[in-house]
C-alpha cells in the first residue's frame, strides 16, 4: 500500500488558491522532494498534510486512510512530524525543553531520555549547549535543533521544509547527510527544497510544483537530467 498519497489537493487562503491540484505519492523508506520556485505552493502542501490547513478539496491518505480532516495534533500521533519553514523554534526555551516538546505526546521517560541523547549524538553541538535558550543559536544550529525536535516524536514520516535555507554550504551538506542517515535508519522523508540540485541528488523520487500544481515527476536523477528542470530550477549551477 502507498505510504502517503496526496490526491488533487486544493488549498486556499481566503479567496486566493495557493495550491490547486497537487498530486503525489511517497513510498515507505523513500526520500521524496518537492521542488519549485517561490510561492509555488510547496509549504502550503506540507502545512496541509500536517493538518495546519484544511484543504478546499482533494485528499491526503496515510496508509490508505484519509487524514486531511484531522486536527494537527492528532496527525502527529499517526507518525507524521513536520519541521516547519524558518525553523520556528521556541526561542525562549532551552534546547532540552525544545526537544522535550518534540516528544510531547510520548510518556515513556526512559525512551525520551534515550532519544534526546541520540539527537545529541547526531548533533554534538546541541548536547554541549543543552541549557541554552534556542533563540541564541546560529541558523545552522537552529536547523539541527528543528530536525532533532521533529525526530523526538519517532516519526514514520519526517517532513522538512527548507532545511537548507540560510545555511552555509558546509552546514547544508551536514544537514543533507543527516537526512540520508535518517533514511538508512528507516525514516521516510518528505523534503521541500529550493536548493533543487542538492535535493534531487538525494531523492529517490521528486515532484516539481509550479503555480500550485504538480507538473513533473520522476526519480531524482531523471529530473536532474531534464532540460526543463535545468532551465527553471537549477540555473547555471549545472549548465556550466
Amino acid at each position, binding site marked *: 500500500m502507498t505510504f502517503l498519497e496526496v490526491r488533487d489537493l486544493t488549498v486556499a487562503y481566503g479567496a486566493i488558491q495557493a495550491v490547486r491540484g497537487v498530486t503525489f505519492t511517497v513510498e515507505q523508506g523513500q526520500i521524496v522532494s518537492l521542488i519549485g520556485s517561490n510561492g509555488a505552493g510547496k509549504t502550503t502542501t506540507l502545512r496541509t498534510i500536517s493538518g495546519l490547513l484544511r484543504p478546499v478539496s482533494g485528499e491526503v491518505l496515510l496508509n490508505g486512510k484519509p487524514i486531511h480532516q484531522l486536527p*494537527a*495534533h492528532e496527525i502527529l500521533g499517526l507518525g507524521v512530524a513536520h519541521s516547519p519553514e524558518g525553523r520556528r523554534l521556541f526561542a525562549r526555551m532551552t534546547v532540552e*525543553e525544545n526537544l*522535550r516538546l518534540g516528544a*510531547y*505526546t510520548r510518556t515513556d521517560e526512559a525512551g525520551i531520555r534515550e532519544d534526546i541523547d541520540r539527537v545529541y549524538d547526531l548533533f554534538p553541538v546541541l548536547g554541549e549547549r543543552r541549557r541554552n535558550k534556542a533563540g541564541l543559536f546560529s541558523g545552522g544550529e537552529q536547523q539541527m535543533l528543528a530536525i532533532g*525536535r521533529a525526530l523526538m516524536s519517532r516519526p514514520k514520516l519526517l517532513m522538512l521544509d527548507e532545511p537548507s535555507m540560510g545555511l552555509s554550504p558546509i552546514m547544508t551538506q551536514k544537514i543533507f547527510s543527516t537526512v540520508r542517515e535518517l533514511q538508512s535508519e528507516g525514516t521516510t522523508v518528505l523534503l521541500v527544497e529550493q536548493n533543487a540540485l542538492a535535493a534531487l541528488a538525494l531523492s529517490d523520487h521528486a515532484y516539481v510544483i509550479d503555480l500550485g500544481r504538480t507538473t513533473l515527476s520522476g526519480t531524482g536523477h531523471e529530473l536532474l537530467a531534464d532540460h526543463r528542470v535545468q532551465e527553471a530550477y537549477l540555473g547555471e549551477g549545472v549548465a556550466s
Partner: protein
Amino acid sequence: MLSTLLSQIVNGLVLGSLIGLIALGYTMVYGIIQLINFAHGEVFMVGAYGALAMFTYLLPTFIQQQWYFALPLLLIAGAVVSVGVAVAMERFAYRPLRNAPKLAPLITSLGVSIALQEVIRVFYPGATAAIPFPNIFIPGTWTISVGDGVVPIKYSGILLVVVALVLAYALNMFVERSRMGRAMRATSQDRDVARLMGINPDRVIVLTFALGALLAGIGGVLYGGFYTNINIDIGFQNGIFAFTAAVLGGIGNIRGAVVGGLAIGLIKSLAGQYMPGGSAYDYVWIFVVLIVVLVFRPQGFFGETERVRA
C-alpha cells in the same frame, strides 16, 4: 507616624497579595491568547459568591462554626464555581472567536463581565447590597506596638498573603517544570508549531483559563474572609487593579504579576494615606501609575521587550 506607615504597608501587602493572585489569571490568559479577559475579575467575584452560597445554604451549623472544617470547604467551593464559570465562558464565548479579529473577543469579554455581574445581582438573594461574609479563619488581630502606636495585623490577612505566595510559587513551578506547563509556554510562543508538536491548543487554553480561575476563586474566598463582606462590584474594581498589576509586572510573566500586585497594593494604601486628596483619590493614583507605565515601559518590570505586543 511610624505605626501609621507600617499599618498602611501591611494593608498594602494584603491587598497586593490578593491583586497578585487575580493578576496571575490575567497574565496567563493574555500570554496565551493575547486577550484582556475583562471577565476575569468577575470570575473572582463569582467564586466569593459561590463559596458564600455553599456556606449559607449547604453547610450544617456545626461545620459553619469550625473554621478548620469550613475554610477548606469554602475554598473548594469558590474554586469549583470560578473554574466552572471560566471554562464555560472560554468554551462558549471565546473559543468560537479564535480566528476573529482582536476587537471581537475583547468586547465579548466586556459583555461576559457585565452579564456575570448582573446574573449575581438579579438572582443571588440580597446581592443588590453588600452581604456579610462568614468568618472563616481564626478571628482576631495580632497587634504589634511600635513606638507611639500599634500596627494591627488581622490573622485572615496573614492567611491571604501566605496562601497567595504559596499558590503563585506552585503555579510558577507548574509552568516552568511540568509537561503541561511546557505545553502552555509553547502554545503562547507559537500556536501553530505547538500543534505540530502534538499539543492540542484548545485543551491548553482551557487549562489556562481554569488555572487562572482556580486562583481567582480562592482569592475570592480569602477576600471575603479578610474584608468581611462582599458585593458585586469587587470583581470589576479588583479586576482592573489586577490587570494593572499584570501590566506593571510585564504581561505574561508570573513573577511579574505577583510583584505588580504587591506594588499596586502598596501604591493604593500609601497614596491614600500620604498623597493630596487622601483615600478618595487612591484609585486615581493607580491609574496614573498604569498610564505612566504603559507609555514609558510597556513591557513592565520583568517583561522581555520581544514579548511586548506593539
